[in-house]
């Protein structure tokens, strides 16, 4: 133990990391979820409702739009979790007692994330309208609410958790195996001394790197096919988006993970250490990427860390292509960061490459 400082450090760091993540970053009742309000009418009642939403801790209104259909793109792209639509004629119909609808469309590709807020919506509406239902409107206040809140779970109407978990699992499996296999396989080369043979030949660093990682690209491809087929056959997950876009995402993601594994192998001295460091990457990936717990529910610093993890972007790409029917343009805002992570990891790996045995 005294000899293996890295193992010791990791054994101390692991609990600290877990405490921090579970204690501070993770929240199963997400609040402050990005919301777009499509307010097609402007009046005292709608303004009161808007104010009520603003006051609540569940909804963070990032935009208010005026026209029909304007709000849809926000939710499709994943920049908003909720779209609240107040239709035209809402106030007059409410006054007439026609029970107009307020539509709340939730991005239910992660059903857990939206749950708490949807529950709170009714209460928010009641409180915001109550003070205004006075005078001639008093009769409306006594009966059942004079409006109807309709909840529309988009992309996953039955709130099936498997729709969210199974595509996400693809990312988790790829992270786990790609990072671990490469880091361990490469550390083994150093441990067994075969790296000395490789380094004594005129091979260039890039060639060693490519030669050592390409076999695992195939492994990753096999896993992808396996998960997608199983998802379709066993869980009836609909595939609605662009397959090419998904493949592109998978490709970049696999490369990013290989580079991460490669980087670990340049730091780890033994296979054991490589394994431990893989878990050190794996744990935050699972917890902070939005796989296990809603991403938007995390504090800003945890989201920042999450944004730097390849899995976070990959999860969004998978959900958007599989569940939301996105094409290339739809996932561009995650493809670009993923690509940036890949470039950063590759440059780091190239820099860290050991040309010698020093």
């Amino acid at each position, binding site marked *: 133990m005294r000899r293996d400082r890295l193992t010791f450090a990791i054994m101390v760091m692991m609990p600290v990391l877990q405490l921090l993540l579970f204690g501070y970053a993770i929240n199963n009742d997400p609040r402050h979820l990005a919301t777009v309000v499509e307010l097609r009418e402007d009046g005292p009642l709608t303004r009161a409702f808007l104010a009520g939403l603003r006051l609540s801790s569940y909804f963070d209104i990032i935009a208010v739009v005026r026209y029909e259909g304007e709000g849809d793109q926000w939710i499709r792209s994943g920049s908003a979790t909720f779209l609240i639509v107040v239709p035209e004629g809402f106030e007059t119909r409410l006054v007439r007692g026609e029970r107009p609808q307020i539509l709340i469309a939730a991005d239910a590709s992660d059903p857990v994330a939206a749950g708490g807020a949807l529950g709170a919506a009714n209460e928010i509406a009641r409180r915001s309208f109550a003070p205004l239902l006075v005078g001639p409107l008093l009769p409306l206040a006594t009966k059942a609410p004079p409006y109807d809140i309709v909840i529309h779970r988009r992309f996953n109407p039955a709130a099936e958790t498997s729709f969210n978990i199974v595509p996400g699992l693809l990312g988790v499996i790829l992270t786990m195996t790609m990072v671990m296999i490469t880091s361990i396989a490469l550390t083994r080369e150093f441990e067994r001394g075969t790296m000395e043979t490789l380094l004594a*030949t*005129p091979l260039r660093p890039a060639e060693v790197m490519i030669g050592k990682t390409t076999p695992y690209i195939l492994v990753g491809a096999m896993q992808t096919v396996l998960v997608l087929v199983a998802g379709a056959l066993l869980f009836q997950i609909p595939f609605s988006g662009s397959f090419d876009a998904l493949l592109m995402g998978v490709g970049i993601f696999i490369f990013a993970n290989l580079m991460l594994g490669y980087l670990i192998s340049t730091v780890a001295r033994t296979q054991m250490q490589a394994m431990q460091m893989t878990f050190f990457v794996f744990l935050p990936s699972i917890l902070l990427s939005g796989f296990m717990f809603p991403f938007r529910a995390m504090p800003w610093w945890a989201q920042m860390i999450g944004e730097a993890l390849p899995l976070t972007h990959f999860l969004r790409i998978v959900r958007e292509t599989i569940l939301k029917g996105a094409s290339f343009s739809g996932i561009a805002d995650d493809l670009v960061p993923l690509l940036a992570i890949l470039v950063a990891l590759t440059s780091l790996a190239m820099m860290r490459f050991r040309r010698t045995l020093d």
Partner: protein
Amino acid sequence: MNGESVIDVRGLTKRFGGRVVVDDFALRVPRGAIYGFLGPNGSGKTTTIRMVCGLLRPDEGEGTCLGLDVRQESALIKERVGYMTQRFSLYEDMSIRENLDFVARLYALPDRRRRVEAALGDLGLSGRAEQLAGTLSGGWKQRLALAACMIHEPELLLLDEPTAGVDPKARRDFWDQIRAYAAHGVTTLVSTHYMDEAVQCDQIAFIAYGRKLIDAPTREIPGIVGLHAWRVTAPDLDAVQARLRGHPGVELTARFGADLHACGLDREALDAAVAVIRDMPGVEVTRIEAGLEEIFIHLMAQSTDALQ
């Protein structure tokens, strides 16, 4: 040998965590020479060889290997050098043939198949080509590793204890092969702990604690060190050795088979010491020339004294 140096390094120094492992090391190896590299365990032989072929970056020092700069041009050096590691470092989970083929591919050799088959034939392993390298016996692993490092027909062989654990017959074959290569102009730098191998080298560099103590043609080494020796035979060698040990003038007593060798630098003092035991029952003494083994044991003992 035409005076041209295949290895020519000066001032090589390597530190590991502040500890100097190789200290101001210089070496010139002429083309076609068989250069022996000797020294006690941990003296820095492996480290030096690694610096010469670009596997370790020297902290100080400079020089050339095959006319190429050891600091800047290690990639080019590696193409023309065959390096055999001290520890078996081929893939244990690949077969003999796969290992040879893989190495041949790393050097991007033309007509790979022919070379691999030839190497298998030379090794006498054609019949077992599909056996996993990890299941070979220690000596066979060494022979496979040697074949692998020669497959690209290098001009310089750097062999780090190539015959450790190899049986006497195979060792002889191996050395015959090295000499045949040398006749064709291949240069060899070989580290070894076997004196019967050391005497076959044209020249020997002896290193201890990272410092080079001797670097001379093998034949001249006894003269340079000037060690005198007696061979003693007796029915009770232990008693004789106990008497000799610690006697002024006797710097070294060591068993060689059934005999005891007593050595010292000061000829008169040594003779006086031998005179004391001469009259013990059954003792016979003969003056001999000190061999390499006595000389190196003596050098090792001296270098420890100097450093303590």
